[in-house]
């Protein structure tokens, strides 16, 4: 739908105006029919799965940290910190996400506590990111509206590759927290954080910065890098799994459509990645029904898969599918991977999914 118009990913620019004018903003999205009784069962909250998983997660974090510190100064600390980094900086993303939705635990305050801890681990302002994620669900991959489009078009492949190291995200996240701590929100942030909530973003940023200052002070005081390797540092060396799994959510698929089957991807993954990722590999299902907790997503998938595109059987398969699309988008940014719905599926507003691909073949 974007035609030859260059995409403007700011949230207050030309693409924003177009999205609002064409009805892409705050649109009615497709939902597969699920009987109310069944959906009620799927939506039911329970503390026990998330308490079990959180206990395992925290125990693994503490265990790997203890091993890393114990073996500090020898090569034996490396595997412990590799595990610690992923648990700290990748697993926290899915905990942040699920608790932000309020679906992980039935008890609200536990959701909120884990949300705050995970936000800190990720160097994410818990207030601005809550609102940006709400926008992501309202306007998923709508250019000019969605604040969480990971790979914009034309894709910057170097930047995407560097994302696996966490360097770019670190460079963005820490200065953003400092800026917010000084009371400054960008026009984009102001576009999705209501005015009455903006002061909360400033307070949250100040708390995060205070903890980082305390960590640096401790490192100086004890003449050791260990505090920084344990707090903040994992954002550099442990982010790769979050990027590996998270990039696949929407990369290479259509933008500016109002059907999550066309712009989101479900990928079958190994059990370890699914634990770290808390089942967000069922991403079409999550976007279509964000009320369904992570532990019920496999059941939801079985229920509605007849109406969804074929899932990718593995991450490797998904990346092999995406790579040539990214290369083609370098020359022709309107190109995307067109999802085929099964013959039994109900099509929905397919006009948004139509684009002239002939230029891409040249």
């Amino acid at each position: 739908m974007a035609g030859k118009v260059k995409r403007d990913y700011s949230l207050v620019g030309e693409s924003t105006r177009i999205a609002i004018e064409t009805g892409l903003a705050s649109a009615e999205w497709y939902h597969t029919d699920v009987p109310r009784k069944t959906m009620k069962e799927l939506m039911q909250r329970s503390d026990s799965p998330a308490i079990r998983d959180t206990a395992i997660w925290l125990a693994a974090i503490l265990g790997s940290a203890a091993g890393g510190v114990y073996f500090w100064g020898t090569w034996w600390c490396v595997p412990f910190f590799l595990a610690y980094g992923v648990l700290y900086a990748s697993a926290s993303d899915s905990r942040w996400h699920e608790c932000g939705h309020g679906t992980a635990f039935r008890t609200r305050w536990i959701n909120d506590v884990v949300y705050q801890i995970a936000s800190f681990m990720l160097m994410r302002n818990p207030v601005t990111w809550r609102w940006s994620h709400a926008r992501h669900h309202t306007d998923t991959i709508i250019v000019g509206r969605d604040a969480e489009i990971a790979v914009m078009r034309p894709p910057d492949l170097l930047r995407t590759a560097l994302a696996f190291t966490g360097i770019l995200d670190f460079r963005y996240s820490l200065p953003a927290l400092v800026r917010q701590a000084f009371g400054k929100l960008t026009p984009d942030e102001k576009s999705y954080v209501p005015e009455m909530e903006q002061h909360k973003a400033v307070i949250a940023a100040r708390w995060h910065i205070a903890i980082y200052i305390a960590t640096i002070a401790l490192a100086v005081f004890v003449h050791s890098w260990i505090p920084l390797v344990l707090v903040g540092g994992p954002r550099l060396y442990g982010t790769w799994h979050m990027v590996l799994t998270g990039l696949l959510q929407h990369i290479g698929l259509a933008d500016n459509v109002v059907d999550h089957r066309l712009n989101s991807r479900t990928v079958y993954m190994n059990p370890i990645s699914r634990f770290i990722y808390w089942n967000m590999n069922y991403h079409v299902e999550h976007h279509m029904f964000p009320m369904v907790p992570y532990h019920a997503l496999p059941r939801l998938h079985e229920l509605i898969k007849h109406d969804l595109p074929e899932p990718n059987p593995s991450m490797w398969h998904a990346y092999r599918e995406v790579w040539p699309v990214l290369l083609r988008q370098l020359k022709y940014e309107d190109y995307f991977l067109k999802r085929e719905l099964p013959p039994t599926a109900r099509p929905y507003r397919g006009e948004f999914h139509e684009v002239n691909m002939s230029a891409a073949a040249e």
Partner: protein
Amino acid sequence: MADWVEACAVDDVDEEDVIRFDHGGRSFAIYRSPDDEFFATDGFCTHEKAHLADGLVMDDIIECPKHNGRFNYKTGQAKGAPVCVNLQIYPVKVEAGKVMIQIA
């Protein structure tokens, strides 16, 4: 003068659940609490246009299906981001097996 309008039969709403009721160009949500009491609110979330009848009722909370915003459906109170504006509530009574709501 506010009118009492028949919204549904008592049995139309399961316990700890919600249904949609449209009347006079407006949309409402009718709730049946776990204590077998009935309540009514505006149908759409105050955050964005999502109908609460597709949401989840837990005790005295209705959770919006779109962004998981939470309201107390008995008082209309918004319980925190992403909902900041309270929900309009309406008086409800049950007569002869029918749920009636008073619409201003």
